[in-house]
């Protein structure tokens, strides 16, 4: 009989210890259905990086200002003949291909904010669906770009959550964020165990967040699953690269030399091929479709303790769908500049090579355009003679232009694409 009592007491102790362990996920669990009002998501910030203009070839124009100046001096010494000098300056280093600037790739940083609906007024109400121990346990976020924009996702660069940061340079990823802990983050002073003199210390490597992500042409998907006590509420930052379809442009790069009299002389006007975003119209805002699917872990009972093993859990699933602004016009329009007037109909200077080859005289930056305009309207020039660059004319409204007309018509530097 005594032996039986010992066995019974031992079984009870064992049962108590195992029942009160923090390793359990919950006490009870039920699936309660769909509720789309428990979680919300916002695209808190979408910021585009500066133009990641990429010159694909090495030539004079890819060098720094200092290096350019040195190279011009070297070429000047090496090629006293003017034609040879100009040819050498226009060449590429180590390749015969022309340089090309690419403005179709944009790096975008998106900050998403996930928030829970916190209705404290219904805290003790049986119909309430909020407790302080609730958490978003799983979320799948999808951002889709409509096909009409001719814009696509290219690759992930980085993914940052409140729990860690992942550098990625690919179209998909799957990572765990781990934390080595000494003792359970959920353990508390377990009364019955303390009296039994048992400490429930655990040495474990706890995976606390599992992340997946993938990118296809039109869609980026982020999937996150939090384990014990990890709430996915908060901010998530995703850095991605996007690629527009390309449209060809030709821009001019003027090269100036200072003459003996101190005046700037145009020594060359070089053509550089460029790719800009291809889009028929230029919408003020580019929108994307944001969709969030989530699993919400509502603690209906047992939320007064930090540990989760005693929770009476009710699971809800929900979906949020909204349209979010991704880019503004100023973010994707190429910053090219021309020389012309915007009084009445907009007209700009053109460079005439042949009847089939007339190009807008456009520059990669404001400085180049202003320097060219300054050279063009220099009062020391013969005001009545048409402007020639080499054998080619500058045209305004289809007719050759003179320095006098440049001043008279008040031509100025204008953006080629207008953000407003």
């Amino acid at each position, binding site marked *: 009989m005594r032996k039986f009592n010992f066995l019974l007491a031992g079984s009870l102790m064992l049962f108590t210890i195992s029942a009160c362990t923090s390793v359990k996920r919950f006490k009870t669990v039920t699936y309660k259905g769909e509720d789309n009002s428990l979680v919300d998501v916002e695209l808190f910030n979408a910021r585009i990086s500066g133009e990641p203009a990429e010159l694909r070839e090495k030539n004079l124009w890819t060098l720094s200002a200092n290096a350019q100046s040195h190279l011009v001096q070297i070429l000047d010494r090496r090629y006293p003949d003017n034609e040879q000098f100009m040819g050498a300056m226009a060449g590429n280093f180590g390749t015969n291909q022309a340089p090309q600037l690419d403005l179709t790739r944009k790096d975008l940083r998106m900050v998403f904010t996930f928030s829970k609906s916190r209705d404290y007024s219904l805290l003790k109400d049986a119909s309430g669906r909020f407790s302080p121990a609730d958490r978003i346990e799983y979320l799948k976020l999808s951002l889709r770009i409509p096909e009409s924009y001719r814009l696509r996702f290219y690759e992930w660069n980085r993914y940052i959550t409140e729990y860690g940061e992942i550098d990625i340079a690919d179209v998909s990823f799957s990572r765990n964020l781990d934390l080595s802990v000494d003792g359970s983050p959920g353990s508390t002073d377990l009364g019955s165990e303390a009296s039994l003199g048992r400490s429930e210390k655990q040495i474990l490597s706890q995976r606390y967040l599992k992340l997946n992500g993938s990118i296809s042409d039109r869609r980026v998907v982020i999937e996150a699953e939090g384990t014990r006590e990890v709430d996915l509420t908060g901010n998530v930052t995703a850095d991605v690269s996007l690629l527009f379809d390309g449209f060809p442009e030709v821009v001019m790069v003027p090269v100036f030399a200072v003459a003996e009299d101190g005046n700037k002389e145009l020594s060359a006007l070089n053509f550089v091929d460029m790719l800009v975003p291809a889009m*028929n*119209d230029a919408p003020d805002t580019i929108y994307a479709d944001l969709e969030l699917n989530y699993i919400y872990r509502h603690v209906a009972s047992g939320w007064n303790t930090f540990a989760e093993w005693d929770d009476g859990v009710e699971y809800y699933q929900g979906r949020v769908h909204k349209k979010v602004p991704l880019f503004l016009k100023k973010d994707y329009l190429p910053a090219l500049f021309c020389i012309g007037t915007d009084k009445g109909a907009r007209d700009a200077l053109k460079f005439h090579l042949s009847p089939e080859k007339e190009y807008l005289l456009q520059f990669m930056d404001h400085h180049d355009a202003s320097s060219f305009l300054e050279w063009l309207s220099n009062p020391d020039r013969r005001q009545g003679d048409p402007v020639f660059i080499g054998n080619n004319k500058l045209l305004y409204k289809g007719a050759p232009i003179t320095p006098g007309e440049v001043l008279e018509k008040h031509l100025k530097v204008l953006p080629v694409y207008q953000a407003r």
Partner: protein
Amino acid sequence: MYYLIVRNLGAPRCVDQSEDDVYEDGMAFDCTPHLECSPKEFVKEVEITCIEHPDDMIVAMVFRD
């Protein structure tokens, strides 16, 4: 005179002109020139490619004076 006009980022440009309407779907053109044109009457739309970037089709408009 017939004019081939492409539009990118909201800005139209005349890239080719011809005395006859020779423009058809699938043709390739140099899309970088800005020719002086006087388009008056819309004729049709054609899908062309730019020889500098042949991967993407773009919609161009044919006008005549």
